[in-house]
């Protein structure tokens, strides 16, 4: 095996080792962090899908509400 190839294999081992080490440490760190945050710094949980009404939509809805009220008023 050439010297180049042995460098390559060393690189493979060091590289995958570090990548796994890094991401495994990140897993541990995230678990600790999440535990700490959820216990000591809880915030309102991220709003899930229902409230996807954007500002724009809100304005549309407001405009519609106004229009419909107007309509009711004019035609009652």
């Amino acid at each position, binding site marked *: 095996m050439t010297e*180049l190839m042995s460098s*390559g294999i060393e*690189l493979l081992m*060091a590289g*995958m080792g570090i*990548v796994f*080490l890094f*991401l495994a440490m990140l897993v541990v760190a*995230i678990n600790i962090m999440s535990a700490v945050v*959820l216990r000591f710094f809880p915030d309102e949980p991220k709003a899930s899908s229902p409230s996807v009404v954007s500002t724009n939509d809100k304005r549309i809805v407001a405009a519609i509400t106004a229009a419909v009220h107007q309509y009711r008023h004019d035609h009652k």
Partner: protein
Amino acid sequence: MENLLSLWHSTGLYNFTAGQAFMMLVGFLLLFLAIKKGFEPLLLLPIGFGAILSNIPVAGIAEEGGLLHFLYYGIKLGIFPLLIFMGVGAMTDFGPMLANPKTLLLGAAAQFGIFASLIGALALNMVPGLEFTLKDAAAIGIIGGADGPTAIYVASKLAPDLLGAIAVAAYSYMALVPLIQPPIMRALTTEAERKIEMQQLRAVSKTEKIVFPLMLLLLSILLLPSATPLVGMFALGNLMNASGVVDRLSQTAQNELINVVTIFLGLAVGSKLSAEAFLQLETLGILALGAVAFAIGTAAGVIMAKIMNKFSDTPINPLIGAAGVSAVPMAARVANKLGLESNPHNFLLMHAMGPNVAGVIGSAVAAGVLLSLVK
């Protein structure tokens, strides 16, 4: 008359070399793939166009004083890939990954594609006429990271001559993910495994999303400073978005800024598609190794997921392992699609997004290793 002759001598027709004509065809092919086949058009359209512009005889658009030559400084100095990484960071939602952190390991496993193709490149040196240095091999391997800006960043540092071929291979194979991955994923999993449903992910708090990019950066600083330009800009973008206090900056980073830089980056990459650099045996090797890298990365991710499923208390569908290569979000969509084929109620998309973004981190880390160890 003299004037007309000099005019004729200044035409492209008179000055064309076969190499230039061929590279122009490559450029048109990339445009065709981008426009008609929908292959990563945001990058391949400017790259293809850049390839055409830089191979125009006489005009010298990619030479000293030409626009593409100037734009290339943005790659040479590492600016463009880092700004794109910032924008990608701003677009990335780490929520699914934070809800199920062990899927990060899938993003680690899939980086095996990088190192395997690095070895492959060195092995190809046995083919007469091919002579990849360790730097070349490392730059080629990074294609397996399935992450455009990372590949361009590493290639620009380690093997600028191969940059054009590497970028084209990286983006092309990213576009081909829906074709490359499924056969491998089917071969390595049983129908029963593909049917596995996963538990719904918990909601992740805003604070967790704010702390995570800082933690990621800190770990990178402590362990692998060579990865911090990439990881740092990615974390900056992500923090701008997650913090919610600088929305106008975050919006600009993920829209106008990344768009401008994408145009410039694409053109500059295209300018490296010159006949001398591209029409080499090496290019074929790179294209072959890129495909191998994607395939091996996919396989490694799936196998890792199978192993984890054995030891995990909650079920893990091995299909999501394939998303560990990154190629966000196509790889996650592929996992979702295959999951639905086997079980119409099995929505894996969110579960696959975890390994998917973990793959981005994984390849940035691998890039750091290569930049730090390959001298």
